[in-house]
């Protein structure tokens, strides 16, 4: 009886010791892992969720403790994130900025604190603050979309444009790339150009008001896919989805599916996973000692249409 009691005591002690050892090991392991911050302009858009989650996943794969910070398209929130991550001992930042000019100070602050920043997808207007910037070639992508727009909509008629956030360079690189083509055709008249702030609900709202003022438009060029989906929804409600050609930009899954279904004409595939993974690998290389990174790295954009849509999906090209 006494032997049984002693055995039970010993087993309980062994189990407790094992548990304590495991917990201590896990805690030590987590504490030992260097931290990488993933600061994303907004997690209220599926495309950016993919960008942020992929960057985080790749950083974890590379042996880091990664945390996502959502700036909610607010430079003040973004600044607070930078204050926190610098104080929190993060070793690198994978950064999707909210504002090309407004975000520079945050990057400079991190640099001064010895924390390298790798911009993903969105640019800051500086060549010496970030360690590297991996940017979609929005301009070239929209040159191609502009050429397709003319081919699809024709060389005459009215059209509208939904711009993204006006403080973001991508907004203007996309718009300028598109206009570098369509403006060469005097018969194509832009009757409305308004910001839908890269947001689906705002895109819907803006498109509704454009349709009331300009019911005869033949096409709408949207600076991202969320706005394209919003615009398409407005067109369906107005019974004009068959008359107005919708063009997006991003390569979001719902738009790729809509292209396959013939609802949206085309989008520009930006490869967010590729950019996020590469940026995480850059951060890893920096932490391990590499210093010579190209400042601005263009990532090509591919046009997705009904003809080639089978090659694309899951925010990239199918293997």
């Amino acid at each position, binding site marked *: 009886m006494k032997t049984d009691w002693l055995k039970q005591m010993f087993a309980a002690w062994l189990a407790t010791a094992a548990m304590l050892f495991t917990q201590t090991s896990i805690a030590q392991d987590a504490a030992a892992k260097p931290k990488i911050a993933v600061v994303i302009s907004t997690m209220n858009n599926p495309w950016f969720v993919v960008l942020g989650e992929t960057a985080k996943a790749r950083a974890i794969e590379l042996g880091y403790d990664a945390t996502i910070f959502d700036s909610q398209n607010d430079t003040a929130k973004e600044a607070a994130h930078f204050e926190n991550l610098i104080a929190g001992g993060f070793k690198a930042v994978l950064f999707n900025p909210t504002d090309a000019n407004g975000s520079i100070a945050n990057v400079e602050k991190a640099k001064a604190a010895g924390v390298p920043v790798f911009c993903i997808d969105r640019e800051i207007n500086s060549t010496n603050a970030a360690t590297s910037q991996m940017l979609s070639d929005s*301009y070239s992508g929209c040159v191609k979309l502009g050429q397709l727009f003319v081919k699809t909509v024709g060389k005459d008629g009215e059209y509208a444009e939904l711009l993204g956030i006006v403080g973001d360079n991508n907004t203007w690189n996309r718009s300028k790339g598109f206009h*570098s083509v369509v403006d060469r055709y005097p018969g194509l008249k832009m009757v409305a150009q308004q910001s839908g702030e890269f947001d689906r609900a705002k895109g819907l709202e803006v498109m509704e008001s454009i349709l009331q003022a300009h019911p005869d438009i033949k096409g709408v060029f949207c600076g991202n896919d969320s706005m394209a989906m919003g615009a398409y929804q407005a067109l369906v409600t107005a019974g004009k989805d068959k008359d107005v050609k919708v063009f997006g930009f991003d390569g979001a899954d719902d738009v790729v599916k809509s292209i396959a279904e013939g609802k949206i004409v085309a989008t520009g595939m930006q490869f967010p996973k590729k950019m996020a993974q590469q940026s995480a690998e850059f951060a890893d290389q920096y932490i391990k000692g590499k210093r010579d990174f190209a400042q601005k790295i263009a990532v*090509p954009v591919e046009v997705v249409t009904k003809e080639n849509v089978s090659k694309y999906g899951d925010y990239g090209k199918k293997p």
Partner: protein
Amino acid sequence: MERLTTWLVGIVITASVCCLFPLFHIVTLKTAAAEKAAATFNATQFAETFWTNQLPAVFGKAVNADALLPVIKSDTAAAKKKFSRSVGLSEGYFYFVSGSGRVVAVSDDEVLLAVTDGNTNAEVSLQTGLIFGNALRDGTGLLSANDYPNSQDFNDISAALNHLVETRVLPKLRERAKVGAKISFVGCAEVEDEATDLKPLKVIPFQTKTQKN
């Protein structure tokens, strides 16, 4: 009296400090606009300087079409590796190419040339329609995105260079390009799809000259 002196001394000190370190500057709207314009990147002006000063100096570095085309024909990958340049993570690439050939056909958007000895088929297509994209900006390797804080400025250079080609090169080329004429060229070719962009090689010309037979 003593109080008045203290006040006067105080006023004089304050005025002196304000003169030395003014709290604000008055600038006319005209001057402010001029300062803003000076600080803004002028792509047209930049392209003009680039066109006149930098570009002609590197024409001699362009790969000769006589050397390039046979390699493209026999081993596209080897030609890409040896003679092309690419930007960022792009799978597409550029050739900075020169050469001369005989005009074999002319259409609204292109002048087709037979370039290599004994060949009568179109091997180079000089683009003569509307010029879009970044081939001229990126094809020579002289300009880099790393030098431009705002990519909008860098992209504006493309539009400005395209405009220069459309207004200064293409009108003369269209005028002189008759079937049988011999034309020399220096330009850039962008290859995105090897199946369509290489045969013939689509070149946007910086310069063309008609040669005597």
